[in-house]
């Protein structure tokens, strides 16, 4: 599904290298987790994959189902099936959450040459999905993320993901700042989307999210590289011993 090879990224503004040769191969239908200390480049990786400005790819490649996504505009990547649940979802004053969602859904459909979703169908689907995530009508009406609590913002990201039905979902610390119940809701939302084909890259600090979303592969990232990959037991190891041992091992 997603093939990342030897990805090197630096900041556009200053001469600072952040990713120093990332290799990742995500097969369709699998759940991969990335863990790693703060500042190791996890968010940068997710931004570069989805096309945020300010970064320069100096070496390497990223392909989604064989297509070179680094050559595409952010909206084209989205239409091709890539989705990023933001670590810090952005507020858009004055734009209703529902309006935003519907514009997003229909923009992607248009880019793919598909017919738009009618207002009626859209409403039906969004209501059902919002209900699963305990998002009420009021939250759908309010401006995008404005005045949302941390938990509401993260659930809202999952709602967008559910509506957009991407092939490749990247979740950047979607569990941070959530209480146990909210985390379970988010995990349920993610699990409901697992269908054997959809692929997930879950960035997290905590084992507890991985109790609910069972990963197939766990990667450890440090200083802009994947330093170790393994099965779910790797996450437990980190939980118990921290990163220190791993960092030493590879140093």
């Amino acid at each position, binding site marked *: 599904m997603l093939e990342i090879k030897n990805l090197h990224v630096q900041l556009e503004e200053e001469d600072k290298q952040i990713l120093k040769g990332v290799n990742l191969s995500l097969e369709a239908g699998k759940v991969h987790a990335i863990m790693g200390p703060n500042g190791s480049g996890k968010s940068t990786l997710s931004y570069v994959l989805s*096309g945020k400005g300010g970064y320069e790819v100096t070496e390497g490649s990223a392909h989604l189902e064989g297509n070179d996504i680094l050559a595409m505009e952010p909206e084209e990547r989205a239409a091709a099936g890539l989705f990023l649940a933001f670590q810090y979802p952005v507020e858009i004053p004055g734009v209703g959450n529902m*309006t935003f969602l*519907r514009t997003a859904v*229909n*923009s992607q459909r248009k880019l793919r040459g598909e017919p738009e979703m009618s207002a009626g169908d859209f409403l039906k689907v969004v209501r059902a999905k919002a209900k699963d995530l305990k998002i009420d*009508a009021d939250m759908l*009406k309010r401006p995008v993320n404005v005045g949302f609590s941390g938990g509401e913002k993260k659930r809202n990201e999952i709602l967008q993901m559910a509506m957009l039905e991407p092939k490749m979902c990247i979740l950047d610390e979607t569990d941070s700042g959530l209480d146990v119940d909210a985390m379970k809701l988010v995990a349920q939302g993610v699990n409901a989307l697992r269908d054997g084909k959809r692929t997930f890259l879950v960035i997290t600090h905590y084992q507890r999210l991985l109790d609910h979303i069972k990963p197939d592969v766990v990667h450890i990232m440090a200083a802009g590289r994947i330093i170790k990959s393994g099965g779910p037991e790797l996450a437990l190891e980190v939980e118990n011993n921290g990163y220190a041992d791993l960092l030493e091992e590879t140093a």
Partner: protein
Amino acid sequence: MAMDDVQVKDGVDAETVEAVKALSGAYKYGWNTEIEMEYAPKGLSEDIVRLISSKNEEPEWMLDWRLDAYRRWLKLTEPDWAMVDYPKIDFQDQYYYARPKSMEEKPKSLDDVDPKLLETYKKLGIPLKEQALLAGVEAPEGERRVAVDAVFDSVSVGTTFQAELMKAGVIFCSISEAIREHPELVRKYLGTVVPVSDNYYATLNSAVFSDGSFVYIPPGVRCPMELSTYFRINAENTGQFERTLIIADKESYVSYLEGCTAPQRDIAQLHAAVVELVLLDDAEIKYSTVQNWYPGDENGKGGIYNFVTKRADCRGDRSKVMWTQVETGSAVTWKYPSCVLRGDDSQGEFYSIAIANNMQQADTGTKMVHLGKNTKSRIVSKGISAGKAQNTYRGLVSMHPKAKNSRNYTQCDSLLIGDKCGAHTVPYIEVKNNSSRVEHEATTSKVDDDQLFYCRSRGMGEEDAVALVVNGFCKEVLQALPMEFAMEAQALVAISLEGSVG
């Protein structure tokens, strides 16, 4: 649960994006109508004033009024305090009267109007037809009808639904017709809100105005449909000087819409209008404008110079006026729709979106003059600047000694797109009694890259993303517009900002 509300509002935005996508090229109304015209000789003189008056078959008093204005104008100098910069206007190098030849003989009904003119308005999306009525069937449920007065260069070419409005006692016609048919009303009110000597452009307008709209709503009448005037400048080198007079008698209500467009031309053209609103006791007027004059090209060539004086006089107690404007067009805009709150407990509101892109310059705002007791005013201004444009909000709030217990609230927000444009806020506040309160809030923000990236990562194109964020910024003002206009305005916001990013 208010999900159905959501659906309606939701539809608006989705359609915006639709409309934007459907349109290519920036200014949609830049084409011109090939039609045989009749011009008054170029330049301005007493003879031209007399000619305009005679073309309109005006009574003697009207000619005298014009000549008086002309003589005053000769003694005035052009104001230069606004934050706008444009080449000196040569008032002798303009036509002051241009009318389609086919309008020489006044059409007796809409059926007699030159098909070319009808076609022009159809193409602008303003069909001059009383469709539902002519077909002898009721308008479909929920479809609101709008009566239109269509002004083409110097003349009104037709007004729809006049007969039906007359049944309710509402007079809606061109101002030239009103001067002939309802002289007592025109004489009583014309120039009482914006006096002849008010300012340079108003004085010029008083001398040479050629047409415009007239509305009278009798006591106790709620106007049965929205009224609108659509101004089209077509002829080259021709100034448009329209005059609008709306009188809302006691306990009456009317919602009035104004739209304007012009062809794309290299040479700038002058538009100097005067709008006067008179409100008697308990009357209410909503006046909405979507101003979309040709803004000139991206290098600042051509476009309309829009110098407009709009004022409402809330003469009656408890009267209420609301100005809503969406200013997207013109090369230079100089415009301050104002409210004189003379009656006790009267209210004035001003909602404005002013967009300036490329080389456009807008200096716009409002004046709230509180004269009566317990008067209230509210100002919500949203200025958006992109390209190399300059956008100035200029507002006066004045509380006179007798305006006890009065209130004003002003909110003035500026949004910048890019770093070569400018936004300026110039509030003037005078409070001459100690029981009144004035509140002023101002913000300036930039369209945030993170917001745009967030939208784009969800599948929206860059320009759609800008349009969405900007429409969000303008929301409070868009909500103040009548539904049909709100959609048009949203689409316009998007179109005006094309090419402002990237």
